[in-house]
């Protein structure tokens, strides 16, 4: 290498040498520390040095710039196109139309048959609408904590909330409910039917907007708040949506306390749980 090219060549090989050293450093870091920060830094810098060397090389030492390439038009000459079309339709004139139509039917049938096995993606014989309508709640089903302990009425301080599940072998997501014990002062303010025995009310915990759990109970405002899209529900007014995108109130679960003092459901939810699906009413 002679003349003005020498200086860039020096820089380029320096970059490659730096890259090699950094790669060796990466291997050492891998063996000794396994620190993701150090490994990422060393390997990242090794590649950065390699990139710098390659780009310098291409810019200073390799032929680049103004070359001209001819660009023939995309469309072929018309006679080429005609010849191709003729070849493509070879034999088409003599084919009876009935062949095409019956072949179409056969292919359509195969396509339809390929759709049918998709049903296997949903195990069991229950259709979606039944599965979506059912929850594990019903009259006399006890409320359990997430640890699987039955809930007693006096487990809740007035003004607090608890996430509850039905007593069932598997904790099903769609049955998740939030049990709230209202303060005595709120009981009068609550619209009729909102408060059950002992000031207990229960609502579905799944937001009627997109199905996120309405995780936050604001004790001071008696509101349930959804962390996903910020819908707010008024607990004292049958969980009516008062802000955010939710359009329906949270379905309510009737609550009672049994003879042993355990909290139980007095039936199922009074509305559709979770995000709205296409349905009547």
């Amino acid at each position, binding site marked *: 290498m002679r003349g003005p090219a020498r200086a860039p060549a020096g820089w380029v090989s320096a970059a490659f040498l730096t890259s090699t050293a950094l790669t060796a450093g990466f291997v050492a870091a891998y063996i000794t520390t396994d620190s993701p*920060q150090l*490994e*990422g830094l060393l390997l990242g810098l090794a590649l950065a040095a390699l990139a710098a060397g390659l*780009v310098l090389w291409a810019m200073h030492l390799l032929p680049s710039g103004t070359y001209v390439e001819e660009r023939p038009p995309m469309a072929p000459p018309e006679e080429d196109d005609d010849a191709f079309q003729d070849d493509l339709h070879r034999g088409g004139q003599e084919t009876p139309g009935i062949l095409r139509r019956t072949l179409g039917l056969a292919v359509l049938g195969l396509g339809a048959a390929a759709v049918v096995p998709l049903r296997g993606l*949903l195990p069991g014989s229950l259709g979606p609408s039944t*599965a979506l309508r059912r929850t594990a709640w019903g009259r006399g089903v006890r409320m359990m904590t997430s640890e699987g302990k039955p809930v007693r009425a006096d487990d809740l301080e007035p003004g607090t909330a608890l996430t509850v599940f039905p007593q069932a072998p598997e904790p099903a997501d769609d049955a998740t409910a939030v049990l709230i014990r209202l303060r005595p002062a709120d009981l009068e303010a609550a619209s009729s039917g909102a408060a059950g025995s002992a000031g207990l009310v229960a609502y579905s915990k799944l937001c009627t907007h997109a199905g996120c759990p309405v995780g936050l109970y604001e004790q001071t405002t008696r509101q349930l708040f959804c962390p996903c*899209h910020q819908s707010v529900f008024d607990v004292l007014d049958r969980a009516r949506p008062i802000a955010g995108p939710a359009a329906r109130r949270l379905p309510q679960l009737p609550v009672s306390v049994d003879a042993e003092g355990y909290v139980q459901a007095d039936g199922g939810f009074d509305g559709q749980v979770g995000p709205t*699906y296409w349905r009547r009413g």
Partner: protein
Amino acid sequence: MITRRVVRWADRRLGFASLARSGLNKVFPDHWSFMMGEIALYSFVYLVLSGTFLAFFFDASEAKTVYRGSYAPLNGSEVSAAYSSAVHLSYDVRLGLLMRQSHHWAALLFTGAIVVHLARIFFTGAFRRPREVNWIVGVTLLLLAFVNGFAGYSLPDDLLSGTGLRVANGIMLSIPVVGQWVALLIFGGEFPGQHILPRLFIAHVLLVPGLIAALIAVHMAILVRQKHSQFPGPGRTETTVVGSRMWPGYAVKSIGLMAAVFSLCLLLGGLVQINPVWLWGPFEPGSATGPAQPDWYVGWVDGALRLYPPWEPHLFGWRLPNLFLPAVVLPGLTFVAMYLYPFVEPLFTRDREEHQLLERPRDRPVRMGLGVMAFTFYGLLLLSFSLDVVTRYTGWPVTVLVLVFRVVVLVVPLLTGLAAYVLAKALRDSDAARFTELPWSAVRGTVRRRSRSPKEPPTTASPVAGVAAEHLPVESGPVP
């Protein structure tokens, strides 16, 4: 030279020399904006490499297992195999955390580079005939990149990804007539079901990436067949391509770009934490994280969900789910509009000619206005997906922010679109070489001409703009 002999040996058996030579001599126009697609390509390569590493250690199963490993707070807990292996991968597999985080960063870079590439193609009119076909392939690649990103984000079975899947399930349920079947078939039952993770996994590592790889091949093949478009300039005409030859200059530079993209992914993956699944905790029924933000490329849909009013009308006695319009119709229309744009624009411009030379964004003020309007609209939707975070830092009530943004997201794009239209028109009609050289009088001239004589026939720009620039300030007072 040994390579010379090997090449000769192979060429005598395969006969590729003349074809390969024209490949080596393919000319690439030298313009920085042409690199965006390459950045997308190389981040896809990085995604495949790092993803292969991850696949050796990740177990996409919902079976319950007891986590035993270095992350003490989780030790002994019963979690899904997917979550357990994601935490194991992050704490106890060498290079595991670096690969996981750089994979995630590469996905953000991949989607981002595609969007910037799309913007370049859009604003310079590179989608015009004969490139409508490649525009369709490209938009499909963008769609698949979004889908695969979301599938990957949903795999670790942490509380945040579980929340994302929950919303996705709600969106599927909202589709009229078939929604219940769509959601339950895909999830294999009512949410959360038992089957979604293995299904997402096979989609994420085989089906969608396979489609992406195939479409990238198609995208490149069409590019080679049609050759590059280029900006007008000396010697650059409709029948020539001017630039660097592929071999060796352009290839070496491009491999350098690949090393730079890999470097960026690794530096981000090593130094900037992303998606710490051990902090979110495992997915559990009845729980959600807050605040919950998805990755940026689906953020605009989430933003639309937050802003959409609480409205569920009845159609012929059937209840139309709230999510349907913002989460199914809006994204659907977005992609339909993108697919159709190259075919709609000629209806108005009546320009159906073949174009190998690009336009400057200013050359088409209406397209400029539409593009800026669209980017503002989706940008604001993307901002709306973090309004609760804004509340956290400023204390402004989120309900008020939502009300304000419902208006902002509809009004501001009209304003920015109009401003872009006026500025593009002023630029086109002035002599300014670049935006920063545009005199204020030219802008005023454009606005005045529009409002005073809307029926004025289009003229070749410069003389008229010159007149406007000289005379209008005299009417309206001292020149600034």
